[in-house]
């Protein structure tokens, strides 16, 4: 591509009328710092996102002015903390368009949400010979919990293939579905490739064989509108820290009727309504699944992070990220010897690539010297790396604050890598 074409795209993105990326960047204090003497170019957002001042302030405010345990005190602070915590739940409910707030369970992250479903719903509903269908692009967190469950219950894991572009091969997926299929567990968006899976079609196909559907939304919620009722999935999980919230907090959405019927996950305080040594009665939803003192400040931070995203508008964020992705894709493809892994028609802001003759680790170290943070490795998706015949990739992943200029910096950094290894 010519320089003038690059400039044309740059102008187009800079003039996105309703999104001022530089104003947004000012909301994230860490983006002002330097790394190795260079301005930070943070492109590791699929691993974790940076936090806006509003989220940091909310957590500081909680510990400064409202800190107390929830759901048990009659004193003022406990009431305040409980109210903030439950407000955050309501914010998440609206964000996912869940029917009721009791369908929103606070967990540590997407990983814990999946493990919760595997060990409660799974152990109660999966039996010998039953099948769980996943895809070849799953993160280890959507593989291993099902392997553990299959081992426990004598069930079988089936894996739907992906094509060379990194898309689910839908007819092959459908062929795996049958009377033995009890669950389809799939990523909404692939963390290693950016592929967006056709989740409504997946859920419809699963319905036809009366299978339940769990979606791993960790890489989807920061980038697109998610409506769990429109998708008609049974479970949906995501991690707060990938959508500008703190680490250690995440969400399990489950349809109320399913959550009601599920046995509890962990036993302890708050998840009971009464305890005697003869018989314990479990609490109502969602508290049945929230044993022990939860991550109150994290939940509050998550609520504020979602309000922050809403204040900008997820559709605007999506448009901005698509522009930067399109530009970044073109810039990287101009580099000789660079191969993009993951070229799905429907994809989110992930640029996974390999350079001929240069290991991703070396790419990561040299880019870091330029202040550019990317992830290198197998991205917790080793079976997927095997599918593409690479041990690892270098991965740049986008968030709402990334700019066209940062894609130029990335491309220049990769050119520098090639110089070092020339």
């Amino acid at each position: 591509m010519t320089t003038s074409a690059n400039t044309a795209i740059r102008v187009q993105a800079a003039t996105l009328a309703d999104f001022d990326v530089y104003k947004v960047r000012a909301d994230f204090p860490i983006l002002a710092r330097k790394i190795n003497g260079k301005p930070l170019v943070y492109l590791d957002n699929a691993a974790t996102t940076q936090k806006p001042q509003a989220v940091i302030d909310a957590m500081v405010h909680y510990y400064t002015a409202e800190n107390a345990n929830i759901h048990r005190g009659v004193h003022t602070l406990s009431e305040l903390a409980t109210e903030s915590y439950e407000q955050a739940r309501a914010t998440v409910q609206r964000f996912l368009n869940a029917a009721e707030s009791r369908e929103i369970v606070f967990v540590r992250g997407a990983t814990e949400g999946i493990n919760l479903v595997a060990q409660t719903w799974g152990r109660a509903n999966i039996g010998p010979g039953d099948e769980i269908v996943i895809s070849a692009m799953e993160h280890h967190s959507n593989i291993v919990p099902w392997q553990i469950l299959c081992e426990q219950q004598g069930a079988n894991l089936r894996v739907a293939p992906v094509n060379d572009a990194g898309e689910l091969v839908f007819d092959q997926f459908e062929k795996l579905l049958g009377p033995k299929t009890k669950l389809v567990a799939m990523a909404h968006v692939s963390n290693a490739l950016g592929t967006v899976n056709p989740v409504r079609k997946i859920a419809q196909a699963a319905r036809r064989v009366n299978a339940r559907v769990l979606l791993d939304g960790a890489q989807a919620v920061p980038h697109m509108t998610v409506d769990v009722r429109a998708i008609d999935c049974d479970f949906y999980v995501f991690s707060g820290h990938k959508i500008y919230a703190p680490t250690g907090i995440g969400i399990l959405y489950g349809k109320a009727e399913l959550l009601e019927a599920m046995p509890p996950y962990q036993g302890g305080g708050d998840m009971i309504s009464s305890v005697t040594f003869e018989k314990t009665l479990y609490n109502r939803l969602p508290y049945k699944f929230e044993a022990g003192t939860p991550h109150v400040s994290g939940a509050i931070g998550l609520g504020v992070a979602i309000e922050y995203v809403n204040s900008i508008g997820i559709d605007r964020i999506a448009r901005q990220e698509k522009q930067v992705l399109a530009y970044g894709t073109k810039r990287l493809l101009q580099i000789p010897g660079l191969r993009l892994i993951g070229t799905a028609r429907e994809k989110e802001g992930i640029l996974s690539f390999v350079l001929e003759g240069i290991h991703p680790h070396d790419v990561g170290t040299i880019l870091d010297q330029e202040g550019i943070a990317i992830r290198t490795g197998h991205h917790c998706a080793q079976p997927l790396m095997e599918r593409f015949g690479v041990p690892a990739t270098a991965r740049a992943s986008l968030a709402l604050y990334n700019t066209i200029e940062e894609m130029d910096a990335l491309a220049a950094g990769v050119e520098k890598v090639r110089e070092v290894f020339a």
Partner: protein
Amino acid sequence: MPDLRDLYQDVILEHSKRPRNYRTLEAANRKAEGFNPLCGDHFTVYLQVGDDGLIRDVSFQGSGCAISKASASMMTQAIKGKRIEEAEELFQRFHHVVTGKNGTESNDLGKLAAFAGVSEYPVRVKCATLAWHALHAALQGEQHAVSTE
């Protein structure tokens, strides 16, 4: 701020592109695998050790980054013809240099002194020592794969 050239010295780049003794060893009587599960780097080190404790031949195969591959390549050159104890002792000194331990002179390491720059990049120490850990396991007669984690 560390200079990239301290890490990617010419001799390291050269060995990463043209690794020496990069083959399987038919006559090997000891071998061990080294594996870094974080990045997928994976090497097998082959040794032919005489009854007199001399390393008569050594080779390696596998995949990894420039640092790990160059380190493996230069390791095979450095230990060929050495006694087992000498190779182990060299590993100790090499390890001290790449981890930046005080009081370690890198000038008695010969060409391997090129890896001193690794000490400025702590996350890359595992890369530089991967093949050496496999060597150590092979010399100890351990059959299982060694892991950096």
